[in-house]
C-alpha cells in the first residue's frame, strides 16, 4: 500500500519534471504552422533543426558554447584544485579566505558584467570567444575551488603523511595521491562548472557578438526577433539540453558520489 503510494507520487513528480522538456521535444519535430496544435503529433519534420543550423547559425553557437564551457573549466581546474587543497589542508588564510571565495559567488552578476565589459573592451576581448572563455574561467574558479575544498577536506591527512614518509614531497603526495583519489570529486566539479558555463546568459549576451554568441544567446534571439517561432525555439531548447543529458548520463555516479562531499573511502 505504502509502496504503491510512493510510486504513484514519484510518477506524478517525474511527469511534472519531464513534461516541459518532452513537450519541447515534440514541438521541435512539428512543422511551425502546426506547433500550437493540441494534437499529439500533427506532423513530423526535421525542418526546424535544419533551419536552426542553416539559417540561424546554431552550428557556430554550438561550437562556441562547447569551446567556452570546456575551455573555461580546463583553465580553472588546476588553479581551483591547488587553491581548494591549500584551503582544505593548510587552512591557508583561514575562515576569511573561505568567505572571500564564497563572497565572489554572491555578487549580483548584473553588477559585475558592466565593469567586465569595460575592461574587456579596453584590452580588446569583447566579441571574442577567448574573452568569454576567460570570463567563464574567472567565474568557475571560486565555484570549483569551493566544491573541491569540500572534497579535499574529506581525504584523510594520513594518506598524504603515508606518501611523505614513503618518500614523496608534499607536492608529490598531492599529485600522486590526493588528485587520483579525488578524481570523482574533480569530475563532478568539472561537470557542474561545464553546466554553469553552458547555461550562462548575461555575460554571453554582453560580451559576445553575432559570430561569437553561445547557445543561450542564440536561443534568446529566437525568442525576440520578429515574433516567437515556437517550433524553432523548441528545437533550440532540445539542442541546448542535449549535452546536459549526455553529460549527466556519463557522470551520474560521480555527481551523486562527489556531491555528498567528504566521503572518500
Amino acid at each position, binding site marked *: 500500500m505504502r509502496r504503491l503510494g510512493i510510486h504513484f507520487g514519484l510518477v506524478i513528480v517525474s511527469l511534472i519534471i519531464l513534461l516541459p522538456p518532452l513537450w519541447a521535444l515534440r514541438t521541435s519535430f512539428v512543422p511551425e504552422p502546426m506547433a500550437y496544435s493540441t494534437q499529439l503529433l500533427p506532423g513530423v519534420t526535421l525542418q526546424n533543426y535544419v533551419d536552426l543550423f542553416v539559417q540561424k547559425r546554431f552550428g557556430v553557437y554550438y561550437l562556441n558554447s562547447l569551446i567556452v564551457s570546456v575551455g573555461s573549466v580546463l583553465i580553472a581546474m588546476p588553479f581551483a584544485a591547488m587553491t581548494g587543497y591549500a584551503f582544505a589542508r593548510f587552512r591557508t588564510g583561514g575562515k576569511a579566505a573561505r568567505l572571500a571565495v564564497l563572497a565572489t559567488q554572491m555578487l549580483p552578476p548584473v553588477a559585475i558584467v558592466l565593469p567586465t565589459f569595460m575592461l574587456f573592451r579596453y584590452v580588446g576581448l569583447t566579441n571574442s570567444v577567448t574573452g568569454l572563455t576567460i570570463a567563464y574561467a574567472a567565474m568557475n574558479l571560486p565555484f570549483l575551488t569551493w566544491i573541491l575544498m569540500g572534497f579535499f577536506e574529506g581525504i*584523510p591527512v594520513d594518506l598524504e*603523511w*603515508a606518501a*611523505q614518509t*614513503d*618518500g614523496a*614531497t608534499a607536492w608529490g603526495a598531492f599529485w600522486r595521491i590526493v588528485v587520483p583519489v579525488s*578524481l570523482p570529486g574533480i569530475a563532478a566539479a568539472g561537470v557542474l562548472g561545464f553546466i554553469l558555463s553552458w547555461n550562462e546568459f548575461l555575460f554571453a549576451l554582453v560580451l559576445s557578438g553575432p559570430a561569437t554568441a553561445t547557445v543561450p544567446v542564440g536561443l534568446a534571439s529566437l525568442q525576440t526577433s520578429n515574433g516567437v517561432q515556437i517550433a524553432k525555439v523548441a528545437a533550440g531548447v532540445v539542442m541546448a539540453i542535449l549535452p546536459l543529458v549526455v553529460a549527466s548520463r556519463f557522470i551520474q555516479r560521480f555527481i551523486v558520489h562527489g556531491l555528498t562531499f567528504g566521503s*572518500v573511502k
Partner: protein
Amino acid sequence: MASIELEHVSKLYASGAYGVRDVDLQIADGEFVIFLGPSGCGKSTTLRMIAGLEAVTSGDVRIGGKSVTALPPRDRNVAVVFQSYALYPHMTVRQNMGFGLKMRGVAAADIAPKVAAAAQMLGLSSYLDRKPAALSGGQRQRVALGRAIVRDPNAFLLDEPLSNLDAQLRAEMRLELVKLHRSLGKTIIHVTHDQVEAMTMGDRICIMRDGRMVQVGRPLEVYANPADTFVARFLATPPMNLIPVTLASGPGGAPRVEGEGIALTVPQRHAAAYGSAAGRRLLLGLRPEDIYERPADPGWQPLDVTVVAVERLGVETVIVGQIGAEKPIEINARVSRHFDAGIGERITLYADALPMHLFDAETGKVVPRAPLEPAGPAPLVA
C-alpha cells in the same frame, strides 16, 4: 644504525596549548619501545614529530645520531603505520607496497621481488592485485605493515596499528609484531592506549600524560614501581586500589597505615623509607591481585569488606568490596574463580602488604621506597 633520541622536544600549538612538553628520551638501535597513554596525551604527536610529519617547536630529534629536526619526512627513512592504515585506495596491494621504493627511484625489476618477499612473509601473496577496499580489516593492517617492511627503513613507527581490529585478531597481530621485531631487529616505536599491548610487546614503556613523559622503564618495573597514582591506575584493569590513609604507630611501635575501615602494618623493609611520610595525607596503593580470599603466606593481613559485587569472569573472579562507612571506598580484589560471596555480605579478605605503595594525596607522587626484586620465577614472599 637507528637509535632515536629526543632532546627537550616540545610541541606548542598556535592555540597556546602544549601538545608535547619537554620530552627527553634515548631509544637504542633495535629496541622495541611503547608509548602508552590516554587519548590526547601527546603520544601520537611525539611519534609524528619523530617521523617529521609535525614540526618540532623546540628541542632536537636525532635518528642514528644525526639531527633530523629540519629534515622532511622523506629524508628520515622511517616507516609509519597509521591507525587508519592509510592505504592508497586507488592502488593495488602490490602498488601500495612498492610505492616507497618507487619514490626512491628503485627500478621496477628490483621492487617486485621485495614486494613478493614481504607479501609471502605476511600471507598476502594471493591478494597482491586487489585494491584495499576489497580487503578485510586484518588484511589491510598487514598491507600497511608490508608497505613499511618493503622499504627496509631504519625504524618502524606504529601509531595504534591494532586498535581497529577485533579482540582475537588483535591478540594474534600483537604476537606477530613481536615476532617481526625479533626477525627484523629494527627499532620500533609502538603507540597505544592498551595496557596489554604495553605490558607484553615492548622492551620499555614510556607512559605519557598531558604531553609529558611521566615514567619510562621496563614493563614489569613500571608495573611494580609506579611513579604516581596515574601510572598506578592506568597500567592494569582493574586498576590499583587507592585508599586514603595516614601513617601512624601501631602496637609495639611498628608503623601502620590507617584509614577508615582499614589498618595495615607496614612491612619492616619499607618502614624506614616511609618514615618521612608521617603526618601527610596519603593514598595506600594495593593491586587487586595482592588481595585474596585466603592468606598465601602467614604475613598477609586481614581486610574486612562488605561485598558490593562479585564479577565472575570464568577465568577468575573480581570482588568489589566496600571499606569504611562514612566515606566508603570501593576496592577490587582478584580472588580465585571458585570463590563466592553474596552481595552485602561482610567478608574477610587478606592483603599482601609487601608490594604496597604510598602516594602523596595532594600531588599523587609516590613516596619513594626500595623496589622489590623484579618479578621473576621466584614467588615474592615476605
